[in-house]
């Protein structure tokens, strides 16, 4: 659905050249929900604006929805939906008006546009708000309206830029539900950017971790976590803890095995698949296991080990790059 090769964008700010995106490559298959995870200023929005034809790349090529980004931007626009980061509604426009106009700009007839608007309003919990000016909507409602506007033409591929940025936890969870459902029902391909770990973790099939305009890692949330640190496992045994530790050391990939009283701790790439093996081994020696804990590494651990800094730290840094987009 998306093929990106060497895509790059430079900005010149006060005579200084800044590489916002430094020649990235990636692919997104039809039906996938892929997240672009990185701190503010990593080049996420710049990448998205290039893929949605709003910004011309300074290097590289891309095919989006089967159309070449550079030679057929019109084709790309017809096939994709785009929900921008900061929202996209005019405060005085009414919900129904915005949806109808957006649909008609995609070539739908007035009747089709209205039908589509009613359907989307239902799907996105906006029913009954059609005559409300956008400025009177809550943050979550306005965000769902943005998403409705991105979906008016029923695109097979939709780009969401920071879909839940600035929303309260309840509205975020609600929005995730909508994204999951619409994708399940319509088989949409979704490409989103986020700087929230939990969002990438719970929503995405696959994550591209990005920092300073490059992609530093790629994989499913679980793969990324497994690859970097491995799960932390803690096993409590009734007795013979030292003997249990020896067994744990024989597990493939086990590291950092320690014993403290009746607790054996170790790290292993996949705790859930290592555990049955350990159980069998303990059983064979007649050692009784009393409890077990597996702690999966978080994406923050992943980001830390990849870039040497925590995603939460980078979030606090001033969003220098993203701010220059308007310039």
């Amino acid at each position, binding site marked *: 659905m998306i093929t990106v090769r060497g895509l790059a964008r430079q900005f010149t700010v006060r005579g200084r050249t800044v590489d916002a995106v430094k020649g990235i490559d990636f692919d997104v298959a039809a039906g996938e929900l892929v997240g672009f995870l990185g701190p503010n200023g990593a080049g996420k929005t710049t990448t998205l604006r290039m893929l949605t034809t709003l910004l011309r790349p300074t290097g590289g090529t891309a095919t989006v929805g089967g159309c070449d980004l550079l030679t057929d931007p019109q084709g790309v626009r017809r096939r994709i939906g785009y929900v921008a980061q900061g929202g*996209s509604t005019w405060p005085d426009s009414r919900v129904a008006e915005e949806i109808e106009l957006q649909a008609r700009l995609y070539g739908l007839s007035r009747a089709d546009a209205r039908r589509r608007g009613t359907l989307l309003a239902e799907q996105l919990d906006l029913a009954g708000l059609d005559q409300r000016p956008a400025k009177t909507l809550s943050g979550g409602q306005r965000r769902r309206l943005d998403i409705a506007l991105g979906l008016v033409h029923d695109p097979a591929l939709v780009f969401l830029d920071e879909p839940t940025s600035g929303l309260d936890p309840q509205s975020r969870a609600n929005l995730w539900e909508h994204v999951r459902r619409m994708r399940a029902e319509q088989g949409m391909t979704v490409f989103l950017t986020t700087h929230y770990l939990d969002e990438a973790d719970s929503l995405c099939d696959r994550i591209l971790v990005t920092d300073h305009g490059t992609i530093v890692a790629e994989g499913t949330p679980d793969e990324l976590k497994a690859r970097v640190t491995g799960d932390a496992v803690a096993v409590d045994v009734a007795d013979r803890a030292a003997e249990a530790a020896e067994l744990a050391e024989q597990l493939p990939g086990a590291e950092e095995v320690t014993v403290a009283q009746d607790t054996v701790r170790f790290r292993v790439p996949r705790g859930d698949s290592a555990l049955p093996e350990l159980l069998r081994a303990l059983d064979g020696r007649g050692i009784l296991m009393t409890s077990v804990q597996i702690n999966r590494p978080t994406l923050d651990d992943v980001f830390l080990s990849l870039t040497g800094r925590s995603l939460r730290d980078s979030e606090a840094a001033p969003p220098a790059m993203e701010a220059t987009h308007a310039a």
Partner: protein
Amino acid sequence: MLRDTGLIFTRDMRLALRSPTWLLIGIMQPLLYLFLFGPLMVTVVDNTPGFPSDDAWTVLTPALIVQTALFSGSFAGVGLLTEYRVGVVDRFRGTPASRSALLFGKVLAQAVQAVAQSTLIVVVTLLVFDLDAPLSGMLLSLAIAAVLAISLSSGSYALALILKSEAAFPSLMNMVLLPLLLLSGVLLPVTRELAPGWLYALARINPLTHVVDAGRAAFRGDLSSTGLLTGCLVLVVMAALALVWGTRTFQKENA
């Protein structure tokens, strides 16, 4: 493209009609001129030898129409910058709609609004003051207002998209507009008899002078005058240049 132009035009007009304060704000200034400056002008006209007309209202009214169209057109870019900030412009630009249509729709809505304001000015002058102008001339001046609003708003949109600064844009506009207005003889015609040579020369270079002259010729019923022809030619050239500039800016990939 026609269809998309219509869609954007309808949107802008609907929003304008929903909060018609723009109409009142836009008309406030010319009304103040009519009531607080017009009576002075009558005396000045009567006592100034060499004044191009002996009727103050046929001098002042078309000038106020030009001024109103000039202001509302020039500041159209401010509205566009607000739309840009809240993401509306990018949303439209992300659709397959023709990017020229986005410009044309907005520009046409500006033209209609300028005509509405100008009509109000004419009606008030007819009702309250003893304006004596032919209907054809008044209609012609409305057409002038429309084309002027088209060229200025198109230029204003282009400049706004290039500057992309809601703070800098209005100050820049004010800086450009005041000398342009003074040099166009909006309040007092800059004629060879009244003005020193250098001022007259400067005024002649100012395209707006010719537009104001054309409006006045129309109000005098002087439809065959060279002033009217020159003014209309200047207007058409201005509009063409501004529309080309606007279209190019709107089509630029990263504007």
